[in-house]
C-alpha cells in the first residue's frame, strides 16, 4: 500500500488579491473535515502589489492517528511536489510553471485574465507579453488545467476572485471534500456570504466542466440603434469609388480610414483621402503589391487616416460632446438606476493648441508675437476642468466643435497637410527601390500621438528620424535600420535611446 502523503497546495497571487483569504478558507475547510491543515506565506512587502505565494498542506487526521505520530509538514512548495496550483492571474501561473510547481500530477486552476506588470504598461507602444505561450505551456504541463477569466466572473457576481477560485477548486474535485462542505466554510465566515457564494457557484460550474455561463464583459461603444443599414446618399459615391478602384484586400482598411476622415471633416476630405490613396495604390500595383498582400496600401490607408484625422481642440470637443459617449460612461462606472452621474473632463489646452485652430496668419502672429502670446498664455496657463454634463460646460465644447467648417483655414490644418505631403513623398520615393522601407516609412506615423507635451515629443522624434532618411539610405537593410530607430524612439520618453541610435548613422 502506498503511504499516505500530504496534499500540497500552492496559491500564487499578487498582494491584495485575497490569496490569504483563500488559504484561510482551505485551511478551515480541511480542519472541519478531520484533516490536519497547515498554511503559511511570505507576504512582507509583497503585500503591496508584488507576486507572492501562499502554501497549504493537508493531512488526514485518521492516518496520523493510525501511525501514532504527527506528520512533519513542509513550509514551502518543492518543484515537482505540488498537487494543486491556484493562480489568480495567468502570468502568475506562468511563474508557478517556471518554478517547477506544475507537473502531470498537478491540477492547475488559473484565471486567464491579465493584470499587467508595470514593465508591460509603461512602454510608449505595446509592451504586453505573449499570453498564449504561457497558456499553452500550462495546458501541456499540468495534469489538469482549469482556466477561465475568473476576474470577469467575480465582477459579474460582485464578489472577489478568491470566491471564484475557491469554487473552481471545489468543482475540480481535486480535494476530497463535497460542494456543501466548501460552501459551509463561506457561510461560517459570515462575511459577504451572498456575494461569495455566487462567485463560488460560477467558479464551481467552470471547475466541474459545465457549460460557460459567464457572459463576456460588454466593451466598446454600443452600436447606435439609429445607424441605418445602408450608406447615406452623400457617402455612396465615395464607397463606389473605393470598390471600383482598389484591390479587395485593401477595402476593409480603406473603409475604416475613409469613415474616419469624413467623420473628422467632410465628404470632400474623404475624396482627398481616396485621391491620395489612389496614388499609393497605383504605386503599390506597379511594384508587385498584389504579391505582397498590398502591405504598403494597407499601411498607408491606416496611417494616412490617422494623420488626416489629427487631434486638435475642435476634434476633442466634437468627440467629447457625442451622445454615445455619455451612455458608455454610465456603463463604465457601473451606475445604477436612481443615481445621477456628472462627468468632468480634465483638459489643458496650451497657447499652441489655441493657435492651432486659428486662421493661419492670426495663429502665426499669436505664436510669434511675445505680447500676444503671453496675453493668451495668461488664460491657458492652468489646466481646466470642464463639466460636460452641465449646460455651461457642454455648450463651451459644443461651440468649439462648431469650428469644424472653418478648420481648413487653420494653422494646424496647413501644417498637417504639409507634413503629410512630405511623408507621402518619402513613401513614394522609397517604394520603387525598397518596398519594405516604404512600408516602414508609412509606419512612422505611429510615433505621432497624443496631445500637448506628448504630441510635441512624438513629433520631434518623428521629425528627427525623417530628417535622417537620406543617411539611412535605401539599401537592403535600410528598412531594418529605420525600424530600429522607431523602436528606439518608443523605448523611453527622454529620447536618449533615439539620440544614441541616430548618432550611429
Amino acid at each position, binding site marked *: 500500500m502506498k503511504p499516505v502523503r500530504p496534499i500540497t497546495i500552492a496559491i500564487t497571487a499578487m498582494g*491584495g488579491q485575497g490569496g490569504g483569504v483563500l488559504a484561510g478558507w482551505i485551511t478551515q475547510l480541511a480542519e472541519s473535515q478531520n484533516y490536519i491543515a497547515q498554511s*503559511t506565506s*511570505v507576504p*512582507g*512587502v509583497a503585500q*503591496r502589489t*508584488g*507576486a507572492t505565494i501562499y502554501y497549504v498542506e493537508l493531512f488526514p487526521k485518521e492516518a*496520523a492517528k493510525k501511525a501514532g505520530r504527527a506528520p*512533519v509538514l*513542509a*513550509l514551502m512548495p*518543492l*518543484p*515537482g511536489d505540488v498537487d494543486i496550483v491556484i493562480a489568480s492571474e495567468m502570468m502568475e501561473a*506562468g511563474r508557478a510553471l*517556471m518554478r*517547477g510547481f506544475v507537473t502531470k500530477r498537478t491540477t492547475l486552476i488559473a484565471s486567464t485574465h491579465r493584470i*499587467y*506588470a*508595470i514593465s*508591460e*504598461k*509603461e*512602454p510608449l507602444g*505595446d509592451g*504586453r507579453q505573449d499570453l498564449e505561450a*504561457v497558456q499553452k*505551456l500550462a495546458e501541456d504541463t499540468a495534469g489538469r488545467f482549469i482556466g477561465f477569466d475568473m476576474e470577469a466572473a467575480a*465582477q459579474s457576481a460582485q464578489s472577489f476572485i478568491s470566491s471564484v477560485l475557491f469554487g473552481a477548486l471545489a468543482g475540480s474535485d481535486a480535494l476530497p471534500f463535497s460542494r456543501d462542505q466548501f460552501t459551509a466554510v463561506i457561510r461560517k465566515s459570515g462575511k459577504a456570504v451572498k456575494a461569495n457564494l455566487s462567485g463560488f457557484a460560477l467558479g464551481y460550474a467552470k471547475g466541474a466542466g459545465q457549460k460557460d455561463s459567464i457572459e463576456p464583459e460588454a466593451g*466598446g461603444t454600443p452600436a447606435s440603434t*439609429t445607424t*441605418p443599414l445602408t450608406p*447615406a446618399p*452623400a*457617402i455612396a459615391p465615395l*464607397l463606389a469609388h473605393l470598390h471600383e478602384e482598389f484591390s479587395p484586400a485593401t477595402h*476593409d482598411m480603406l473603409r475604416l480610414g*475613409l469613415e474616419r476622415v469624413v467623420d473628422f471633416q467632410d465628404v470632400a476630405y474623404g475624396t482627398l483621402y481616396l485621391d491620395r490613396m489612389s496614388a499609393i495604390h497605383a504605386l503599390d500595383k506597379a511594384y508587385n503589391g498584389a504579391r505582397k498582400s498590398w502591405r504598403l496600401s494597407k499601411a498607408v490607408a491606416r496611417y494616412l487616416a490617422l494623420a488626416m484625422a489629427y*487631434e486638435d481642440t475642435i476634434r476633442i470637443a466634437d468627440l467629447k460632446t457625442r*451622445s454615445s459617449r*455619455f451612455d458608455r*460612461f454610465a456603463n463604465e462606472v457601473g451606475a445604477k438606476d*436612481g*443615481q*445621477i452621474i456628472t*462627468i*468632468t473632463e*480634465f483638459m489643458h489646452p496650451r497657447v499652441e493648441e489655441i493657435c492651432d485652430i486659428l486662421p493661419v496668419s492670426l495663429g502665426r502672429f499669436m505664436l510669434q508675437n511675445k505680447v500676444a502670446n503671453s496675453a493668451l498664455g495668461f488664460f491657458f496657463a*492652468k*489646466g481646466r476642468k470642464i463639466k460636460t454634463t452641465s*449646460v455651461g460646460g*457642454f455648450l463651451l465644447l*459644443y461651440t468649439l466643435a462648431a469650428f469644424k467648417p472653418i478648420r481648413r483655414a487653420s494653422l494646424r490644418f496647413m501644417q498637417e497637410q504639409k507634413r503629410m505631403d512630405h511623408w507621402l513623398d518619402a513613401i513614394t520615393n522609397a517604394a520603387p527601390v525598397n518596398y519594405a522601407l516604404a512600408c516602414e516609412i508609412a509606419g512612422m506615423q*505611429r510615433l505621432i*500621438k*497624443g*496631445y500637448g*507635451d*506628448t504630441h510635441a515629443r512624438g513629433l520631434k522624434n518623428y521629425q528627427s528620424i525623417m530628417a535622417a532618411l537620406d543617411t539611412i539610405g535605401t539599401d537592403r537593410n535600410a528598412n531594418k535600420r529605420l525600424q530600429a530607430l522607431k523602436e528606439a524612439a518608443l523605448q523611453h520618453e527622454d529620447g536618449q535611446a533615439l539620440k544614441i541610435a541616430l548618432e550611429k548613422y
Partner: protein
Amino acid sequence: MAERSFAREVQKLKAKKGETFHGEGILAVTKALLQSGVSYVGGYQGAPISHLMDVLSDAEPILNELGVHFETSASEAAAAAMLAASVNYPLRGAVTWKSTVGTNVASDALASVASSGVMGGTLVIVGEDYGEGSSIMQERSHPFAMKSQIWLLDPRPNLTAITQMVEKGFELSEASNTPVMLELRIRACHVSGSFIAKDNVRPAFTLADAMENPVRDYDRVVLPPSNFVHEVEKIEKRWPAAVSYIKKHKLNEFLGGHKGDVGIVVQGGLYNTLMRAMELAGLADCFGQTDIPIYCLNVTYPMIEDEVRGFCADKRAVLMIEEGQPEYIEQALNTILRQADLSTRVIGKKLLPRAGEYTGQVLREALSAFFADQAPGKIKSTAVDHPLPEKEQKTLMATVPPRPVGFCTGCPERPVFTAMKLVQRKLGDFHVSCDIGCHLFSILPPFNIGNTTMGYGLGWSGASAFNTPASKRTISIMGDGGFWHNGLTSGVGNAVFNKNDNVLVIIDNGYSAATGGQDLLSSRADNANRRTGQSIENAVRGLGVKWVRPVNTYDLGKMVKTLTDALTTSDKGPKIILAQSECMLNRQRREKPLRNKAIKDGKRIEITRFGVDADTCTGDHACIRLSGCPSLTIIDNPDPLREDPVTRVNNDCVGCGVCGEITHAAILCPSFYSAKVINNPTGFDRFRAAIAHAVIGFLQGRADNKRQKYSFGTTP
C-alpha cells in the same frame, strides 16, 4: 488602527489548560508568553513580526487583565532597553522586532543587558527576514548572540515546538542569568497550526512591586569594575549554567536512527524542509521517521560540546545544514571535533550554497550529493529534475514579467514622486537619499528615483556628506515612521546643527504604513490606548528648522512648486517639505463601511472615480509612467486603426484624483475624466440633471441627425 485586525483571534488567548489552540505562529507565541507569566512586552513592528505587534495591541484588554504591560516602543533600541526591568527584579519580559535590521538598532541596549545579566527571564523574539519575500540586506542574527553572549533558540517550525521553546526560553534565561533570543523565520511566523494550551499565568511579582520596592545592586551596572566582572561571570558562571540547563532539559533533539556512520546536523528551523527533502529522496516517511541520525539544534548558540562529540564520535561524516553565512555553527563544530581529536568530516558549505534561503530544492540537491559521496546507494534515485525542459523554461523567463512591489491604488505618496519626476524634467536629476517605508518603492519603476537607503530614519543622514556648496541641492526622503523612530534626531537635528542647506521631504501619511498601518505619534486618528496627534511640523520647528512647508500630496501643482522652491531658493539652511495625506488603505478601511451605510440609509453621497476616454486616448501611456497606480491599466485599443493599447482605469479606482492632476501638471491629454456618481440625489439634483439632460439631449440629437447624413451604414 492597523491594517489587519486580530480582535476576533485574540479571544483565543484566553484558552484554558488542555484546550486545543488553532492559529497563526505569532498568535501562538503571544499565548506562550501569557502562559509563561510575562510581566511586560514591548517591540517595534516590521515584517515578519508586524502581526505579533498587532496581536499584542489588539490583545491589550486581555494583557491588562493579567497585569501585563504592553508597549509599542519608539524603536527597537527602546524595546531592548525595556529589558533593563529584569536586571534587578524577578520580572519576566519579552520584546520583539524584525531582524537583522531591528537587532542592529537594538544592539547597544542588548549588549548592556547581556553584560549586566538578568534576574527575571528575558526573551527577545526576532523575526528573521531572510530569503524569499525579504526586503532587507541578507544577514544573520547569529553573530549578535555570539558577540553579546545571548543564547539563541531556533525551534522546529511547528506551534508545539515554538510555544514550548518560549516557555523553556524564560527558564533558560533565569537559570543562566542571560537574555535569550528566539529566532523565527518568515514562514514560521505565519504558519498556522495547533497546540495544546495551558492556563495563562499572572506574574507573582508585579511591575508595581518593583517600583514601590526598588533594589539597587552596583554589581549589575555596566561601569568599571563591574563590566570586567561581567565578562568573567559570563564565561565562568552563566555559560556553564546554560549548557547544563540545555542538556538537562534536552532542548536539542536527537531524531532519526542511531546507527550508521553518517548523520545530519540541522538548525531546528530548517527541520521540516529537511524532512520533506528526505522523504522525497526515500530516506524518511512523512512522519519524520528515518534511520539516518539527525542532531536537531533547537539551540544554535551556545553549542553543547558533549552532545556534538557524542553525536559525531561514531560517524565518518556529518552533513551540516546551516542557512546563511558566515557558517558559525560549522566552524564551531569543526573546532569542537578538532579539540576532541575526532576525525569526523563536517560537510556543510562545501555542498550547500553559501548564500540564499535553504529551500526544499536546495536541500534535496545537497542530500543527493552528500549521500552519493558518503553512502552510495542510500538514495535510489538521485535525479532531481525540473519538470520543464530548458527550452520552455527559457520561453517563460522571457515572457513572465517581473512583478515589483509598488504603491497601492490611490496611495498619497505616489504624487510626491510624480512631482519629483516633473521637477527633474525641468531642473535635471538630483541625488536622492531614501529611507525605509512604502516611499522606498519610488526606487522601482515607473519612478526610478533614489540613490541609497541607509536604514530606518536615516534618509537625511544618508545625504549628510553632501553639505557643501554646489549648484544643485540633494533631496532626502523620510517617512513619518522613520522620523519618529530616529529621524528627528539623526536626520533633522543633525542637519540643523551642521547647517545643512539641503531638502528633506517627510511623508506624513499618518501611519506606519509599510509595516501594516500601525498608529504612531503623529497619527491623526484617535487611539484609545495611545496618545496620537503630535505634529511633525511643531517638532521640526522646535528643533530650529525655519523653512517648513506642509503640502497636501494630492495637490500635485503645489507639490511641484514647493519642491522647485526648496531646490532653488536662496534661503540657506535645512528645508523641510511635509507631504501630508492619509494612507489610502487605512482611509478606505475607515470610511467605506460608513459610506455604504449612509447610502443604505438614503443619505446623499457622492462617489467619484476616474476614467479614460478611449476615443481620445492615443496609447502613449505617459500617464502610467508618471503615476504607476495599479488601477491604471491597459486594454486593446478599441479603434481598429490604432495598434497600441489604450489606458483604462479599472474598478479598483478610489477616486483620489491624482491622474487628473497629472494630466494638468504634465500637460498630457484630454482623455481623463472624473465621474461623480450621486447616490440618493435630492430633488434639486434631479431638477438640475433634468434641465441639463433636456438641453444636451436636444443638441446631441441635432448633431446625431447631421451625422446620419454621412453615415457609412452598418453593412460593409
